């Protein structure tokens, strides 16, 4: 059981800056994120896309913004718990007991939900019949590639994951790559390689088709694909892999008894507290009149939520407002030598 002042859910820019504000006012926090890296949507969706509306930063990419925020909170040495997800919350004696998917436990008076639009999960095949093979012979990520040796593998998708795995597995498996159109969005070198492998018959490349059904008797035997005009083909398959990118799911957050408005959480704009005492929501996941889904709004929301957390983390102390330019206490916390 880890005892802390605040658990932050989400390591995107909003969660990171909130951590900074907590550090500045002398609170400790632990940060949990479902992704295997820090940065949230900035890193997962647009690491290379320039952002033009961060105050005083005329232009930066999602990756640069993330790296700068990581740098900014470095003095505080906060722990990150990546590839993990907060699953359960329980309230006991005005403390929240937090449990993650990987079994980590936290005790904290405050939880800050900075979860964006939820957690990223692989987009799955849109058909019902694949569900019983999910995780066994229908996969959306690869942990152990040796299981495919000498097997028939049908890969769906047109991005880098699909192309890279088609190339990689073509060494030791019979690979069929199926994509809904002729163009691929993967790296040009990979696209070139796929075309070569297709030309010399190392892989079967089928475009303008998508999945229709999977067949098998407990064990997957084949996959049926269809074209938009209705033609279909059946391909022998021991494994079916789908690489359609990631979608965002609210996940367990929806089950914590928080008021929800569509997929967002209404908050009090004084401190960004939700309807549950000690649970705050900031960034894209919170809503209030006039809400803008901008990173800069998330920064502001994080700063106020941090002060809201102070009240519950230090009930016997009075919060004192200080400037970083003037306060020696803050400079000590930042490890700044004058």
């Amino acid at each position, binding site marked *: 059981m880890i005892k802390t002042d605040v658990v932050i859910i989400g390591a995107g820019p909003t969660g990171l800056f909130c951590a900074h504000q907590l550090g500045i006012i002398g609170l400790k926090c632990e940060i949990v994120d479902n992704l295997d890296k820090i940065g949230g*949507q900035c890193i997962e*969706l*647009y690491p290379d896309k320039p952002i033009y509306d961060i105050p005083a930063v005329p232009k930066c990419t999602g990756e640069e913004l993330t790296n700068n925020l990581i740098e900014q909170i470095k003095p505080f040495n906060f722990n990150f718990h990546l590839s993990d997800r907060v699953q359960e919350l329980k309230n006991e004696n005005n403390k929240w007991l937090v449990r993650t998917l990987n079994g980590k436990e936290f005790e904290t008076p405050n939880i800050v939900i900075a979860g964006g*639009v939820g957690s990223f999960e692989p*987009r799955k095949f*849109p058909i019902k019949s694949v569900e019983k093979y999910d995780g066994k012979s229908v996969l959306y990520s690869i942990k152990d590639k040796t299981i495919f040796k000498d097997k028939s593998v049908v890969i769906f*998708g*047109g*991005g880098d994951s699909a192309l890279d795995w088609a190339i990689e597995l073509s060494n030791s498996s019979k690979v069929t790559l199926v*994509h*809904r*159109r002729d*163009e691929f*969005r993967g790296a040009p070198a990979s696209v070139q390689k796929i075309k070569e492998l297709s030309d010399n018959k190392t892989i079967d490349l089928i475009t303008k088709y*998508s999945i229709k059904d999977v067949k098998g008797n407990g064990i997957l035997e084949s996959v049926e694909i269809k074209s*938009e005009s209705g033609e279909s083909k059946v391909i022998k398959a021991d494994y079916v892999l789908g690489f*359609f*990118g990631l*979608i*965002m*799911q609210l996940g367990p957050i929806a089950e914590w008894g928080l008021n929800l408005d569509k*997929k967002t959480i209404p908050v009090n704009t004084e401190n960004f507290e939700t309807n549950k005492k000690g649970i705050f929501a900031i960034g*894209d996941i919170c809503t209030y009149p006039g809400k803008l*889904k901008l990173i800069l709004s998330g920064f502001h929301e994080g700063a106020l939520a941090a002060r809201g957390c102070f009240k519950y983390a230090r009930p016997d102390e009075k919060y004192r407002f200080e400037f970083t330019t003037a306060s020696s206490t803050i400079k000590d916390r930042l490890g700044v030598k004058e």
Partner: protein
Amino acid sequence: MAKIKYIEFNGTEHEADVANGLSVMEGAIQNDIPGIDADCGGGMSCATCHVYINDDEWFKKLPEKEMGEDDMLDQAFEPKSNSRLSCQLIVSDDLDGLTVHMPEKQV
């Protein structure tokens, strides 16, 4: 200003007057029309504002897809050759009378 018709997968029709300059996606969100999620808020990075343009004439008349829209559509639910991301369809008088059909679901 353009009148845009949004038809849900179950056939329910909605009509909205959408101001020039807004996207077809924003027209749906601002009028509480269900069937378009728009998780990323119009950043062309989520494919949850996916619609079909069933009328071929209209499909051809729409502004062409910019780089990246098809890449995003690869990740949509049941993309077809008449698929568009509604966040990329910017409303002008020319779009008056456009009908968009929603897919069965967005994710």
